[in-house]
């Protein structure tokens, strides 16, 4: 818990409306956050120049510090999109989920989380998760029910599903990184570049170090011959493109039609 050496900013109705509306979302993409910011300025302070987003958020965070929450920025693991969520700084658990799900549902999530963290690829198969249904705490849950609960997790952006397998949504990583690192210190994987928690990524076949896909994209951006930063061996995987918000907006491309690399390259 960092000390309050940062100067505390001032809240105005612009910031308050922003916070109120931000809280109605679990997680937001950067363009949505900008749109929200612009909306709040329009409502309360039409003529003012809109603060740079980073400064705007830092200002709010300086005030939130004494409440042990913050607006945290992260990057999606599969395609490097910036995302934002209001997270609890003091907790090391699934507390935000706790109010929306029943005991057995939370336990299902824990089981899935453990399988995901333990896995080589960062994905846990539906079958493997469902096989643990008998071990759940709380009210007995049938497999059919569990399938629906898993879909609930996908809809509320705690999990992502790809071809019958589940991994953590960027939101879950933002909220639970600290908790995951503390609870599974041996199983946890770390990115060699950003040193953040790694669930999905690419790994070097020689020395085993891992990197997030967006970190790979950035690191090898202008290299013709990508080599492992650790052992210098040739990097055997496709290098993804760096996420470019401008390009995306122009083409109006939907996420599903974009040529995103297979994320399970290990």
């Amino acid at each position, binding site marked *: 818990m960092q000390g309050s050496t940062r100067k505390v900013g001032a809240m105005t109705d612009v910031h308050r409306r922003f916070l109120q509306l931000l809280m*109605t979302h679990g997680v937001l993409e950067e363009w949505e956050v900008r749109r929200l910011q612009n909306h709040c300025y329009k409502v309360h302070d039409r003529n003012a120049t809109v603060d740079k987003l980073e400064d705007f958020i830092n200002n709010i965070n300086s005030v939130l510090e004494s409440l042990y929450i913050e607006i945290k920025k992260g990057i999606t693991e599969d395609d490097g999109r910036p995302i934002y969520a209001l997270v609890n700084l003091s907790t090391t658990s699934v*507390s935000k989920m706790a109010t929306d799900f029943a005991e057995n549902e939370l336990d299902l999530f824990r089981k899935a989380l453990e399988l995901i963290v333990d896995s080589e690829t960062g994905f846990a198969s539906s079958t493997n998760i469902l096989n643990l249904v008998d071990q759940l705490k709380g009210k007995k849950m049938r497999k059919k029910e569990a399938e629906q609960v898993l879909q609930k997790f996908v809809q509320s952006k705690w999990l992502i599903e790809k071809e019958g397998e589940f991994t953590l949504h960027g939101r879950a990583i933002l909220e639970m990184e600290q908790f995951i690192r503390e609870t599974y210190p041996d199983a946890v994987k770390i990115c060699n570049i950003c040193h953040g928690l790694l669930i999905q990524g690419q790994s070097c076949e020689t020395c085993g170090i891992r990197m997030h896909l967006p970190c790979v994209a950035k690191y090898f951006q202008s290299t013709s011959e990508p080599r492992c930063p650790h052992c210098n061996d040739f990097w055997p995987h496709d290098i993804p493109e760096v996420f470019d918000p401008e390009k995306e907006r122009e083409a109006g491309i939907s996420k599903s039609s974009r040529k995103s690399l297979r994320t399970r390259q290990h």
Partner: protein
Amino acid sequence: MLQKPRGRGRPSTQADREREWGDAGEEAPSTSRGTGGTSQGSRASLSSPAVGPRTQKQLEVKVAELVQFLLIKDQKKIPIKRTDILKHVVGDYRDVYPNLLRLAAERLQYVFGYKLVELEPKSHTYILINMLEPVEEDAEVRGDQGTPTTGLLMIVLGLIFMKGNTITETEVWDFLRRLGVYPTKKHLIFGDPKKLITEDFVRQRYLEYRRIPHTDPVDYELQWGPRTNLETSKMKVLKFVAKVHNQDPKDWPTQYCEALADEENRARPAASAPTTSS
């Protein structure tokens, strides 16, 4: 085990803590029961000594927990009882509860723009009132439904007010049928209108729903609940009704006078500060 047990200054078994967070104020119909919430209990809450002064930091953490608790509870539109606050957040800090609540209320107002208000005087039950006026464009940027400023609730509130502040359930359905809303039929937008009106809105304290004695078949009367008076006003509802009819509020002189009188009452300074009545 997911949670890291950290002492709360009073001996509690894992089962105790789980039970505590297990019924974090969830009322009957809800299915969410968070054992994951036990970890909320073992958060940054430092062990509070049985006796002795609390450090500034410990108090700050408690206020932070209380603020989050109030925000989460209010999001579900469930009025927050003092007993729940004491049980789930305050705990050993009972002796400084009035202070904690006052500080939490101050933070809620300054940081989020929410006012902590007692539902009825001396009820020790609280809701959060938004000090910021909702704006139509909010709907485009929010992630949820928001408070029902338009929609079924507003229609029912309008009906009740225009009919002299009380109405029977039969009259409600007679009216709603004309809009294609039926008690027994699933509605595309409202889902289960009967449940919404007679259960959800009542639980959220927007409506009062009382059986009328000696009626056969049994009928119920509907009136505004305490939350409605706090979140909106007769004038606002009258304006809504007028807008729907494309008319002016003054076209209903009786209701307009009543709404004006209500506005005057509101303008008078409030009685005592709600948070100190502990």
